[in-house]
C-alpha cells in the first residue's frame, strides 16, 4: 500500500510500505477514506520531536471503512464507517475506566521510553514517535487499529467524512481546552493561536457560553476565520497583546487563557522568543514557551490556563511566581478524545456546528509531502489540509 513516511527533518515521502495485518484478536484494519495533517505533525516535520525513526508511517487524524476485524472484536464489523481517535486506549486499565483516555496505562508498547521521558507512560498514539508506542500512522491507505473495540467512533449515515473527520482529534482537543476552563457567563476567554485547534477552541468557548472570546495570531487568514467564529482578534505583529487584553477586560486580564500553539511559538519580535530560538537551535532548550509566559503574566488572578498545544520536553524561564501568587490553575494534557466524542457527534448531527468550515485544502495522499510545507509555511491561505487516497 501507499503511505506517507518520515525520513528526517522536512523529509516526508509518499512510498510503498507493507500492508498492515491483524496482530491481535481485538484489532481491526481500516481502509482510509479521509485523513488530515495535524499541527502537531509539524513538530516532527520540523525536527523538534524526538523518538522518530526513518520509515515511520505518520499521521493520526484519519477515518475510513472497517475491512477486517480480529476474532475477539465485538464492537466493529466489516463495512462499519469509523473515525479513529488519535489516542489508543485499552478500555480496561484504571485510567481508561476513569475516562482519562490519553493516559491509558497499557497501550504504549514502548512503555520504558515513555517512563524514561515523562516519568510515567502515556497512551499509545498513532504515527507519533516511538515515545508513544511507535504505531504506524493514519496517512496511509490502510491502518491497523489496535484495541479497535474501544476507541473508534461509529459514524451514522447522512454525515460526510469532512463533517466528522475532526472528531478524532482537533475538535475534541479544542473542546477540551475550553471545557476544562469551566467557562462562566461573564468570562473573557483568550485563545493563543488561530490554527485548526485554536479555531475549534474559539467555537467551543462560544458554545460553552463565554461572554467574549479573543483570538491571538499574526496570520491574516486565520484571524479572519477566527472573527467568523465570533472572536475579537489581536494581530501580535501589529499591537501589544498585553495592552489589548488589558483594554478588553477593563484592566483585569482574561479569566481563561488557552494555549493552542505549543512548543513552536513564532512571536519572533519578543526578546524571550528570540532567546528561546537561539537556545533551541543549540539544543539547550527543547520548546519555545513564549505563549505560556504571556498567559501566566496576563491571566486574571484565580483564572485558568488551559494548554492544548503540544510541548515535548524542557522549557526555560517560566514565571511560576505569577502562577502561584495569582492562584492560577493549569489544566493540560493530550485530549481524552472519547470523553467528548458522543456529545460532539450528536451536536454535529443536530447541525449545531459543521467542523468542515476549517478545511482549506483537499488533496490526494500523494500530494501530502508538498502539503506539509504549504501547511507549515502557512502559504496559500492554508489552515487545514485533508487528504484522500
Amino acid at each position, binding site marked *: 500500500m501507499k503511505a506517507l513516511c518520515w525520513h528526517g527533518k*522536512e523529509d516526508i515521502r509518499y512510498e510503498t510500505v507493507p500492508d498492515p495485518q491483524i496482530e491481535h484478536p481485538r484489532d481491526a484494519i481500516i481502509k482510509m477514506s479521509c485523513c488530515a495533517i495535524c499541527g502537531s505533525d509539524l513538530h516532527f516535520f520540523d525536527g523538534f520531536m524526538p523518538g522518530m525513526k526513518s520509515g515511520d508511517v505518520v499521521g493520526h487524524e484519519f477515518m475510513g471503512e472497517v475491512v477486517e476485524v480480529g476474532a475477539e472484536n465485538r464492537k466493529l464489523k466489516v463495512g462499519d464507517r469509523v473515525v479513529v481517535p488519535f489516542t489508543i486506549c485499552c478500555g480496561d486499565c484504571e485510567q481508561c475506566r476513569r475516562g482519562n483516555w490519553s493516559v491509558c496505562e497499557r497501550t504504549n508498547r514502548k512503555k520504558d521510553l515513555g517512563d524514561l521521558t515523562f516519568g510515567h507512560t502515556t497512551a499509545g498514539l498513532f504515527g507519533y514517535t516511538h515515545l508513544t508506542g511507535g504505531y504506524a500512522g493514519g496517512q496511509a491507505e490502510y491502518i491497523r487499529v489496535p484495541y479497535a473495540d474501544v476507541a473508534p467512533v461509529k459514524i451514522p449515515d447522512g454525515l460526510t467524512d469532512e463533517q466528522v473527520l475532526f472528531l478524532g482529534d482537533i475538535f475534541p482537543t479544542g473542546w477540551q481546552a475550553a471545557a476544562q476552563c469551566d467557562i462562566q*457567563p461573564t468570562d*473573557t476567554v483568550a485563545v493563543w493561536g488561530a490554527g485548526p485547534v485554536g*479555531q475549534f477552541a474559539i*467555537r*467551543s468557548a*462560544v*458554545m*460553552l*457560553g*463565554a*461572554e*467574549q*472570546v479573543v483570538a491571538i495570531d*499574526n*496570520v*491574516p*487568514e486565520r*484571524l*479572519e*476565520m477566527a*472573527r*467568523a*467564529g*465570533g*472572536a*475579537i*482578534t489581536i*494581530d501580535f*505583529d*501589529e499591537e501589544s497583546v498585553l495592552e489589548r487584553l488589558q*483594554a*478588553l*477586560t*477593563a*484592566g*483585569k486580564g482574561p479569566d481563561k487563557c488557552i494555549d493552542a500553539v505549543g512548543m513552536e511559538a513564532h512571536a*519572533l519580535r519578543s526578546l524571550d522568543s*528570540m532567546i528561546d*530560538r*537561539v537556545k*533551541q*537551535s*543549540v539544543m539547550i532548550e527543547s520548546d519555545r514557551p513564549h505563549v505560556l509566559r504571556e498567559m501566566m503574566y496576563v491571566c486574571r488572578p484565580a483564572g485558568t490556563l488551559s494548554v492544548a498545544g503540544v510541548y515535548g520536553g524542557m522549557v526555560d524561564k517560566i514565571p511560576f511566581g505569577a502562577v502561584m501568587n495569582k492562584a492560577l490553575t493549569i489544566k493540560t494534557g493530550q485530549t481524552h478524545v472519547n470523553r467528548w466524542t458522543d*456529545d460532539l457527534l*450528536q*451536536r454535529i448531527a*443536530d*447541525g*449545531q*456546528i*459543521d467542523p*468542515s*468550515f*476549517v478545511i*482549506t485544502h483537499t488533496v490526494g495522499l500523494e500530494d501530502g509531502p508538498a502539503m506539509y*510545507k504549504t501547511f507549515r509555511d502557512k502559504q*496559500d*491561505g492554508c*489552515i487545514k489540509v485533508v487528504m484522500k487516497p
Partner: protein
Amino acid sequence: MSTTTSHPLSRVLPNRPVGPMRSPARALGWFSIGLGLAELAMPRRLARIAGAPNMPTMTRVFGLREIGTGIGILASKDPSPWLWGRVAGDALDVATVGAGLVTRGRPLRTLTSVAMLLGIAYIDMQVAQQAPPSRKREKRSSHDYRGRSGFPRSPAEMRGIALKPSSRIERTAAADTPTSASSPVRSVMQASMPESTTYP
C-alpha cells in the same frame, strides 16, 4: 536540447528541500561555531598555525564573534544578514592574518592562510547572495474566510448553546453573512465592569 547552468557551489553544497540555500547556510553556521570555539580555546596555537600575529585576546574576541554569527545563522529564519556578517568578518580576518607577513616572518604559511580565508569569503559571499530574502507577509487575507463560522446561525445566537442538551438547530441566513471585525460574540465587558476600587 536545453542547457542549464548550475552554480559551481551546487556540487559542493547540494540543495536541500527547504529554501535553496538553507542547508549551506546551516553548514556555515556550524562551521562558524566550531571555528569560534577553537579560537576561544587555543588562540596561540591557531595564530601560530595560521602565521598570524600572536594576539590571543583579539583572537578570543574574534572567536566570540564567530560563535555569535553562527548562532544567528542557525537560529534566524532569515540568515541573510548573519551571512553578510560573516563576509564582513572574513575581511577583518584577512587583514589581521595578513599582518602576520610583517610580524611572524613565515610568509608562506601566512599567504596560505590568507588564500584559504579568501576562499571561505568567496563561499560566504555566494551563499549570502543566494539566500532567499526574508519573506514579508502582506497583512491582508489572501482568501475570503469571512463566511466560515461553522455555525448554523450567527456566533452571538450560538453563545451558550452547549450549556443545554443537544437539539436540532436549523440554519438561518445570518450564518452566511460575512462577519466583520466589529461583530464578535459580545464585547460589552468594558461597559459592564465597574471601575476598579483603589484603597489608599
